[in-house]
């Protein structure tokens, strides 16, 4: 993305945003559902990208945080509380749990965070399934209402899609600002060279926990949208495989690239839909495509683009060098 001139980038951005607003207007219910799902999963993946791509911490619990957000929304809105209250609860809960979870793991070595989060992911699933009094267990919570936003009901698919898209927009802007702030720089410093970051006076452990907690909180945000989107939640969608799926989205999109999660979520949510005509084979084809992509470009889809840009720059530079050299030789 960085290789394009500024006006082209802005034009491209406007076209994509306008497209996301206008094109779905005549989509059917199912198409809108899939697109809303894409927006929700993108929010969760942006959170994970912050943790993994920018701060370099592997989390296998993002799906569990989506689950916590979804249950917060499901439980509170069926009691008649507004969704915005559930959003606040989900953010605080996920942030706090993320912080506490990272604490013991980072006391030892940072790849233990992956193991602890893996365990947490399954523990959260067990709580969702077994604590009937709170989560209604395997029967799930049904008839979750969709919210009114500034007096506009979002019961129909299109307004709700706009709510998801708007939330994605707000989250994107906030994260964009965050990674350009000193905090974001500190996150990248953690990933690139923790020892150097430490020697520059960055409290690496606090920033690592912070990156993990903020990423988890965004998982909670995605969850609070997920519950009113499906209007029914049960424990099954929030098991370990959702966490693994989200991790895959971040990696195939391109970890550490701002737009990576957008692309990754698009591949993970939409590609299986497009491949549905192949019937039982679609997940197999999806898995094969992911493996081939990772073999070809381990830094994901945006990694390919990045590489092409870099090659073009090198070619331009060497062409300029050749011209300069011939001029030098031609000169007496």
């Amino acid at each position: 993305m960085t290789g394009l001139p500024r006006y082209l980038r802005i034009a491209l951005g406007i076209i994509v945003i306008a497209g996301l607003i206008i094109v779905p207007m005549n989509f059917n219910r199912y198409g809108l559902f899939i697109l809303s799902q894409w927006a929700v999963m993108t929010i969760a993946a942006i959170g994970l990208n912050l943790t993994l791509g920018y701060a370099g911490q592997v989390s296998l619990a993002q799906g569990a945080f989506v689950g916590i957000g979804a249950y917060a929304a499901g439980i509170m809105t069926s009691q008649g509380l507004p969704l915005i209250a559930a959003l606040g609860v989900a953010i605080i809960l996920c942030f706090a749990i993320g912080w506490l979870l990272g604490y013991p793991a980072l006391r030892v070595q940072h790849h233990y965070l992956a193991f602890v989060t893996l365990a947490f992911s399954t523990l959260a699933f067990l709580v969702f399934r077994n604590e009937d009094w709170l989560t209604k267990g395997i029967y799930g919570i049904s008839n979750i209402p969709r919210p009114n936003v500034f007096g506009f009901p979002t019961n129909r698919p299109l307004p709700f899609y706009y709510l998801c898209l708007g939330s994605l927009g707000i989250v994107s802007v906030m994260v964009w600002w965050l990674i350009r702030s000193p905090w974001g720089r500190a996150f990248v410093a953690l990933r690139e060279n923790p020892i150097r970051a430490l020697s520059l006076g960055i409290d690496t452990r606090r920033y690592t926990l912070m990156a993990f907690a903020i990423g988890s909180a965004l998982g909670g945000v995605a969850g609070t949208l997920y519950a009113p989107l499906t209007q029914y939640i049960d424990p099954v969608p929030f098991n370990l495989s959702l966490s693994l799926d989200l991790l895959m989205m971040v990696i195939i999109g391109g970890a550490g690239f701002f737009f990576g999660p957008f692309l990754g979520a698009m591949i993970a949510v939409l590609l299986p839909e497009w491949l549905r005509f192949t019937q039982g084979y679609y997940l197999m084809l999806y898995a094969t495509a992911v493996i081939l992509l990772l073999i070809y470009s381990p830094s994901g889809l945006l990694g390919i683009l990045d590489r092409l840009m870099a090659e073009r720059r090198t070619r331009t530079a060497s062409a300029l060098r050749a011209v300069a050299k011939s001029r030098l030789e031609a000169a007496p």
Partner: protein
Amino acid sequence: MSNLFDLLVAGLATGAIYAIVAVGFTLLWQTSQTINFAQGEFVMLPAFLMLAAMQAGAPFWLAILIGILLSMLLLGLGFKLLLVDPMLRHGVLPLAIATMALAIGIKEAVKQFFSAEASPFPSIVPAGDISIFGHPVSLQSLGVLTLAILAVIGLTALLNRTSIGHQMQAAAQNPTAARIIGVPVERMILLTFLINAVLVALASLLITPIYLAKFSSGEVLGQAAFIAAIVGGFNQVRGAIAGGLLIGVVDNLAAAYVSTQYRAAIPLLLLIVIILFRPQGILGRPEERTV
């Protein structure tokens, strides 16, 4: 008391299977930094290969042999050449993600080409009970335990008593130094992949008669093996064995004495406690801290 004894035997039997799977897991990690998230699916697949061979008319013993050979070909050689080799130089994470995708692929392929339903699988140990100290013990548990112990003893003997085993350990501990003193490191790495393939095929043979052959059965198994490997010690074969046995026993006791709903939580809590107080695992060597 008799109840406890039964639980211990059953726990040790499943634990021994977890141990076999966990040993393969740590071997791959040690020799080639592969965190194989598809290890559970690797255990699920050979049972279906054997079932397919039997459907094609092969007798049980031949089907087992075909299953093990195909497993070596697909999950050993194929896995290494097609997935690990091209990805290894890119680091641990992309490879780990690729194995997650592989897990989805294997599961879906089995669902599509075999069946989405659970299929029964013949046991190599006859059913029935045997009396030990006047106490009936299921032959199946005992047989599984014996075979698993034999496999573990065989593997440890291979690693510690033979020249090839020493070369494999050298290749795992310090590939550069091993290469200098003439160890064919590449061949040794391939060998660990083949050993892993045999181990998962064996685990498949032992566990499938108990839990039936189902495309999704790898998920639980893979996670158990993963936890066993971390609890026991990620960088030690004997650690993985101890971890496997411990998880098997704890799992069974938790189901009986704590709660069936939260039985899966107990090994996870054990995992978190271990990471807190002894992160290198029960028998593992501490890894050097980078910071």
